[in-house]
Structures are given as structure tokens and as C-alpha cells.
């Protein structure tokens, strides 16, 4: 306990020192009243009524208590298996605000207005990337205000929202600040500023959140990760509108209380902040035309397409991602969840999506897999189990351990294993009429097994046969020699792995063990990913649902012939109708 307090104090001191250092070193853009540019002094909101608080208690004990706990200390039954942990309300530390760094967020029980009520918006839109869901549509507006009335008065214990002596409100006037157009010039300036303002030290050279992956802690001593700018839908403050630069501008101006993310209001002008926001927003994943990815309103994540198309490439498939064929190949987002079906379960998967592209020729199919992983992990020495072993001895997180033993406290303290990725395809998929697939995870049995190709960060590429979720893998004869690891590279928080495997044929391959890829067919495909620094190994991994690999057939000649024939037919038909009509008018009948 003593330890964590000193640690905390040290951390706060260090952060404070850092902020002072940064703000004094760089020129300050402070307005006439001594406020940072874009901010205005505001008044504290009136206290909510006793009825609101009482009604809110009922909401809290139905919906919130399960994670946030009876005393609002963020220690409910669900807390220890979550990372980030649920918010501890007691200190009054809230991340997403319109108020200056360190201040309480905006909350007024009578004003559910966007931009003027931070806590209300957090409850309404949730905090993506954490377990906090959007409560809009579940709780009425009134109920959301009630529960916040209860939280801010009864569960925030160290501070008072109405205490004029100790609390101030310095409010970012976001509604009055017009966003700067995201021109190339603005983005270029933003790109320079994120280096100058040292954003890259934590967020990484490419903004994948890999700059300082091991040492960042929040106010409660738990490891936290800098945001990955390429996944704006996971920004806590994205308010279900991830491509909106104003959200980034706000976070950057106010800082994130309770974390090492400071406010940059004092050492950047409003203009510079728009440049940075424009640049950061421009990094978020977009489609090939540069448009924002369509967001699924049910999940607030990009929409998923379960077909992974593979394009035909004549000749040897290129190893360079920059090659035109790869640039043109359709790119698909594969969503990853924690493997929580069988023990050991992975409640916190640090890999939550993979980008997949594919090309094929007459002999091979190549998958290009790219995924963000803040930590490059290669196990030191030999792993204590064979590569084929699935049933390995990894302890699963206990449900209730208290803060010290929780998943959040374990981050960065796991034994380091290999980062890894695997592509699993159904063997004999043709014998399973759609939509039937082999049983999930590693196949049904010997009769309907899975073909598993696994790459590990130690450079190995292996082929296995999976015959059931609890069966150790079987090695496949000679298959590894037929495969090729075309590329594997970790750069600035992202893995790039290119795996080539035979499309399969009855002559050289084993029908009972290898997947035969056929053009124009839907081949059930599953992806697995392991983050070595998350202690991922064996069944502790991230998994996808069943996707389909679909090798696009070359366009058959008939596609060009038949439409012309049809068009000619239509012309003839038109002629017939017109003649008939004309004849009838003349009184003739055919």
C-alpha cells in the first residue's frame, strides 16, 4: 500500500514537473485574462435535487454497481477482469471533459445539452475501447441525469461539484471555435507539431501508441496505453463520431485527467491545435478512396465484411507491400475478440483487429496480414512447451482478486512469449454443405479437421492439423516445406506478415489434411493472434469469427458476350412492339 502511494506521489510530481517544464520551455499563448486560448471562465452548476439523487441511486444499483462497485470505487464484481478498469469515482477524476486539466467535468442535472454536459455525454455515448457501453436508448435522458446526480454527489467523495472554495470551471469554448479545414498544409504542420510537442514520445512515430508501451501508469498505479491514432473508433472521447476532429481537439486541449496525457492548452495556439487534430484524424484508417470507414451503429466499430477476396496475379506474387498489385488488392478488417470460450480465457485481448489482403496464382495463395501491436515480443530462450501443444499450463485470471491481483495490475508483468498469428481453414470444406462449418476453435474431429498455418515472432512458420478444441495439434507431413514466409517485420507498433501457401491439389497434397483452395468458392477461414507481452500462448489468444476466403475468378468471356446478345434482343423486341402498335392503329391485326 505504502509503495503504491509513494509511486503515485512520485508520478504526480513527475507529471507536474513535466507539464511545468513543457509549458515554460515553449512560448505560451495565454489570453488577456490569463486563460489559455479558447477557454473561458464558467460557473459551477447548481446541486441536483434530493429527488434526482434518490432516483439515481435506483438506476445505479440496477445498472452500474456491477462494475463500479457499491461505493463507486471502481471495484464491482466485474472490475478485476477488465482493462482499463472501471472508473473509481471517489477522487472525482474524469477523463473526457471540456474543462481545463485537473478540473471537474461539466455536469448539470438540468441541462442535457451536447458540449455543455461532459458526464451526460459520457454516459450517453459510452467510452469506446473500454467496457463502458452507450446508455442512450437503454436509460432515458432523465434516468441518465438522475444516475449522474447520484454519482457526483454521493460517490465522488474527495471533491465537491458545488464547492466554490476549491473548484473552478475553465471551459473550452468548442462550439465557438470553427474547425480549420483539413488541408494538406494544415496536416503537414500538424505532423511537424506532434514531433515538436513530443506527442510521438508516447504515441509512437506512426501514432500507433507504441512510443512508451511499458512505463505509463494512471493515477491509481495501473499500466495504461497511449491511444492508437489509427483506430479512432477506440478513442474514449470519440462520442460515437470518431472521424470528427473536434473530439481530438477537445482531448488535446483539456488533457485526460488521471493519465499522463497532459493538456496542451498552455503551449499551443488554437490554430496549432486544429493542425494537430487534423493530422491525428487523418491517420485514422480509411478506405482506398480516403473516405472514413463506415461505422456500424450497433457496435460503434467499422462495419465488417466476412468475405476476404483474393485477386489473381499472373506470375510470382510480389513480396513488397508497395507493389501495385498489393496496393490494389481489396483490404478487409477482421475483428478480433478475446478467446473466452475455453480455458485459459483471454478477457483482455490487446489485438482487436487485423487487416487482411490476399493474392493468388496457379500454385499459391498469399495472405498479407497487418495488425497493430504496441510491443514486439519474442520469448527469451526456449518455450516450456512444444509448438504442437495446445493444452498448456497458463493460469486464467481469477474473477475476484482485488486491485493488486487484477488483470489491470498484471499488464506488463506477464512472462513474455512470442507474438504470433495463425490462419485456420477448413479441410474438406466441400463435404460440409454451407453454412455448416467445422466446430469452432480447432475443428470437429479427425473426420472434419482444420488446416492451421501459424507464424511466430521467432521466425517459425508451421503447419498443423487441428482435430478439436482440446486436442493438441498434429504436425502435417512435409507441408512446411511447401510454405514460405515471404515477409515478417515489426515497425513502429505494427506487424507486417506475408504468408504463402499452396492452393492445394490432389497430386501433391493430402486431401485429408490440407485445405484445397478453389477459385470462386467460399472457404471458411478463421484468424488467431497472440500478443507475447499479454502472456498470450496456447488458447489464451485473440480470435476472429468464421470468415470466407474467396478467390476472385478471372472474368469469363460470356460476361462480355451475353449482355450484347440481350441488348440486341431488346432492340428486336422494341421493333416488334412498335410495329404491332402501328398496325393496330391502322386497323390491321397481325
Amino acid at each position: 500500500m505504502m509503495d503504491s502511494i509513494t509511486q503515485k506521489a512520485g508520478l504526480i510530481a513527475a507529471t507536474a514537473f513535466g507539464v511545468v517544464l513543457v509549458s515554460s520551455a515553449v512560448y505560451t499563448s495565454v489570453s488577456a485574462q490569463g486563460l489559455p486560448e479558447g477557454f473561458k471562465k464558467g460557473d459551477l452548476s447548481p446541486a441536483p435535487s434530493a429527488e434526482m439523487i434518490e432516483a439515481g441511486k435506483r438506476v445505479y444499483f440496477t445498472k452500474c454497481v456491477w462494475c463500479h462497485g457499491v461505493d463507486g470505487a471502481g471495484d464491482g464484481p466485474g472490475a478485476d477482469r477488465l482493462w482499463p478498469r472501471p472508473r473509481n469515482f471517489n477522487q472525482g477524476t474524469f477523463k473526457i471533459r471540456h474543462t481545463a486539466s485537473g478540473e471537474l467535468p461539466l455536469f448539470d442535472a438540468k441541462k442535457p445539452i451536447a458540449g455543455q454536459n461532459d458526464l451526460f455525454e459520457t454516459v450517453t455515448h459510452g467510452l469506446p475501447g473500454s467496457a463502458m457501453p452507450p446508455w442512450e436508448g437503454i436509460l432515458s435522458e432523465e434516468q441518465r441525469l438522475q444516475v449522474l446526480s447520484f454519482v457526483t454527489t454521493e460517490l465522488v467523495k474527495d471533491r465537491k461539484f458545488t464547492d466554490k472554495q476549491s473548484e473552478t470551471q475553465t471551459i473550452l469554448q468548442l462550439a465557438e471555435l470553427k474547425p480549420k479545414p483539413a488541408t494538406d498544409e494544415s496536416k503537414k504542420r500538424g505532423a511537424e507539431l506532434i514531433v515538436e510537442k513530443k506527442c510521438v514520445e508516447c504515441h509512437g512515430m506512426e501514432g500507433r501508441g507504441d512510443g512508451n508501451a511499458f512505463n505509463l501508469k494512471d493515477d491509481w498505479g495501473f499500466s495504461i496505453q497511449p491511444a492508437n491514432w489509427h483506430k479512432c473508433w477506440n478513442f474514449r472521447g470519440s462520442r460515437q463520431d470518431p472521424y470528427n476532429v473536434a473530439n481530438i481537439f477537445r482531448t488535446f486541449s483539456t488533457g485526460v485527467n488521471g493519465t499522463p496525457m497532459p493538456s496542451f492548452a498552455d503551449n499551443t495556439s488554437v490554430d496549432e491545435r486544429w493542425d494537430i487534430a487534423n493530422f491525428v484524424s487523418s491517420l485514422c484508417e480509411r478506405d482506398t478512396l480516403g473516405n472514413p470507414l463506415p461505422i456500424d451503429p450497433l457496435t460503434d466499430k467499422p462495419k465488417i465484411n466476412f468475405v476476404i477476396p483474393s485477386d489473381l496475379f499472373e506470375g510470382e506474387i510480389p513480396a513488397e507491400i508497395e507493389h501495385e498489385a498489393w496496393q490494389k488488392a481489396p483490404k478487409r478488417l477482421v475483428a478480433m475478440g478475446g478467446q473466452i470460450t475455453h480455458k485459459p480465457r483471454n478477457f483482455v485481448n490487446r489485438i482487436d483487429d487485423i487487416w487482411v489482403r490476399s493474392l493468388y496464382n496457379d500454385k499459391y495463395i498469399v495472405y498479407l496480414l497487418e495488425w497493430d501491436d504496441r510491443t514486439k515480443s519474442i520469448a527469451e530462450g526456449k518455450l516450456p512447451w512444444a509448438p504442437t501443444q495446445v493444452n498448456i499450463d497458463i493460469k486464467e485470471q481469477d474473477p475476484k482478486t482485488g486491485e493488486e491481483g487484477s488483470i489491470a495490475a498484471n499488464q506488463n508483468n506477464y512472462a513474455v512469449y512470442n507474438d504470433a498469428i495463425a490462419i485456420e481453414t477448413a479441410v474438406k470444406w466441400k463435404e460440409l454443405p454451407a453454412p455448416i462449418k467445422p466446430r469452432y476453435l480447432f475443428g470437429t474431429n479427425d473426420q472434419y479437421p482444420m488446416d492451421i498455418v501459424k507464424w511466430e515472432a521467432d521466425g517459425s512458420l508451421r503447419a498443423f492439423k487441428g482435430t478439436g478444441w482440446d486436442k493438441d495439434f498434429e504436425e502435417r507431413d512435409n507441408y512446411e516445406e511447401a510454405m514460405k514466409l515471404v515477409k515478417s517485420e515489426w515497425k513502429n507498433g505494427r506487424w507486417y506478415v506475408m504468408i504463402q501457401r499452396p492452393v492445394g491439389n490432389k497430386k501433391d497434397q493430402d486431401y485429408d489434411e490440407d485445405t484445397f483452395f478453389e477459385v470462386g468458392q467460399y472457404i471458411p477461414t478463421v484468424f488467431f493472434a497472440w500478443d507475447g507481452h499479454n502472456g498470450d500462448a496456447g488458447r489464451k489468444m485473440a480470435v476472429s469469427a468464421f470468415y470466407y476466403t474467396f478467390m476472385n475468378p478471372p472474368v469469363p468471356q460470356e460476361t462480355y458476350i451475353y449482355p450484347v446478345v440481350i441488348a440486341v434482343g431488346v432492340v428486336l423486341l422494341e421493333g416488334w412492339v412498335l410495329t404491332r402498335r402501328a398496325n393496330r392503329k391502322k386497323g390491321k391485326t397481325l
Partner: protein
Amino acid sequence: MKALMSLGALIGVAGLLLLGGMVLDVVPSTYIRLVEGYMPIQMLLEVACYVIGFTGLSYTLNAMGMAIPRFWQGIGFWVFFLLYLKYRMYPPIPFSVRAMYGTVSLVAVFMWVSASEEDWQKFKQPIMNVLDAQTGGNRILRYLYLVLLPILIGGFSFNAMMPKSEEPIELRTVHPAPPASTKVHGKTYTLQTSQNPYRVNPEGKYDQEFSNANIVEQGMGRLMKPNANPWDDKNQGYLKYVREGGEIFFQNCHFCHGDNLNGRGLHAFAFNPIPANFTDPGTIAQLQETFIFWRVSKGGIGLPNEGFPWASVMPPWEQHLTVDEIWKVVLFEYWHTGYYPRTWD
């Protein structure tokens, strides 16, 4: 009458503007919420409102001397219905289903325009006019059709023949028939006769009425009854077990089924089929408690053969939880959603 019709016209215009906004993506299609579970009936109501609005609109325009010919009315209504299906419905309906609805509504439109011989004549008059090409405008139109029709039809068939990789439509069995009995942790439970041992009254007797009186209230938020807080330390019996079930739920199940049991948990977006939504009247509200006990214990891997495609990632919870814990979670799910379990009779 006139005022009524003007009101109808107003509704029609407002509705059209709203739909137009949705088509052009100015108004999000969730602007008017589709209530979960009541979507079909809401859709019918909305379309009925539109029809009333259109009647009013047509009447008003008629009175103003700007009557729309029957021909355009028919086409307009059909186009409206197609747009409505495509842009208003959420979650989106697959194209095949929309095509079916489109065909049915086309037939309906034809029936409407050919209700009487006179109507039918009026309807086909514009077509005949173009065929006869008596005026200059019609002549131009006729040549336009002559050229455009083959090009369009050829283009469509080219598009249709281009190889595509669309997601195959996957049917699945939502609630497979349960077995007569299930064996969990070495003990056999007959589904028809087993009871949740924690659904008890203060005397410790199985009592569904008592528990039904203590579940959350239906309506927005589904909040607990004011005097039935499971977190009250003085609780004994049912509410204490609900709380214990909730603790297990929030340590194991919410990752997929969500903090509000609506199937939108942390990992839910990665899985297909998406996790069950217990607040939907089509899931646990329709099923018996022992059915849930069987599904929870055996998970996706324990689905019977007809329960394909077996892609469910639902864990066989007997691997993780004791029998008592499973019963308590089931108890909690009914408490939290405010549904009564169905009985076998």
C-alpha cells in the same frame, strides 16, 4: 374534410422530407428509433401513416388543380416503398428480401391502378402516347427509350454476370429443440421437471410468483423495484441469489452479452452470429429456465446436429462454472431483463 386532408398532406410532405433526408444521409436512419422487437409492427404503422399522408397530398394537389396523373402516382408509390425499405429499415434487410417485398408491392400497385377499366385506361394512356409519338416531346422520348433500354438492360446483365464475392446468406437455427435431459457435472437434469433451486420465496420453497414480483420493472431502463435492491445486505433468499448471479454474470458473461444484457458486449463485434440479446422478447422471454440451463451448460460446442452452423463461440459453461453458479446466472438474467421464464405447460 378539407382541413383533414391538408393535415394528411402535411404528414405526407413531412414524411417524404424525412425519408429524403435518410436517402441523402442527412438524417440518420436511427433518427426515429426503431424499437427493438417491435420493428415489423412499427414499420407497418409508419407505412400506413405514409399512405394516409399521400392520400391527403393527392387530394390537396387535386383541389389546387395540380393533380398528379395516376401513372406517376403508381410509379411514385412503388419507388417510395423501395426507398423506404432500403434506407429506413435498420438493421438493413438483405437484397433478396427487399426484392420479394418489391415484387409484392408492385403487384399491389398494379391491382390498385387496374381496379376499374377507367383507371386502367388512365394508367396506360401515357405509355400509349409515347408509343404513338404524336407530339414532338413524345417522339424524342420514344427515341430515347429505343436507345437507352437496350443499353441499360445490357449493362444490368453485365453487372449481374461479373463474378462477385458477396457474403453468402447464412440461415441458422436460433432455438434448436432441446433434449429430454442433460447431464451436467455428473448429474442428470430432466428438462421438463427440473427447477431453478434458487427461485425461492423467503420460506425456501420454489415460488415463481414471488420472484416475478421482485424482478425489474418493464419500461424504459428496466429499473429494479424500489424495495427490491439485490445489493441490500439484509437480503436473504431470492434477491441475494440474484446478486450472486449478477456477480458471476459480470465476471464471465458481459464480455459478449453486454452490460445491459443486450448482446453488445466488449467482444461482441468480433463474433458471428452476434451474442444473444436477452432484452429482446425473442430470446429468454420465450424459453423455459431449464432450456437456458441446458444451453448455458453446453454452449456452442454442445449444439445438437440441427443447430448448425455451429459457429457459435458460446462457452460450454460447465467447464467454468458450477451447477449452482449456472442456476444463479439464469436467475439473474430473468431478473435483469424483467421477463418471466416460460413454463412447460
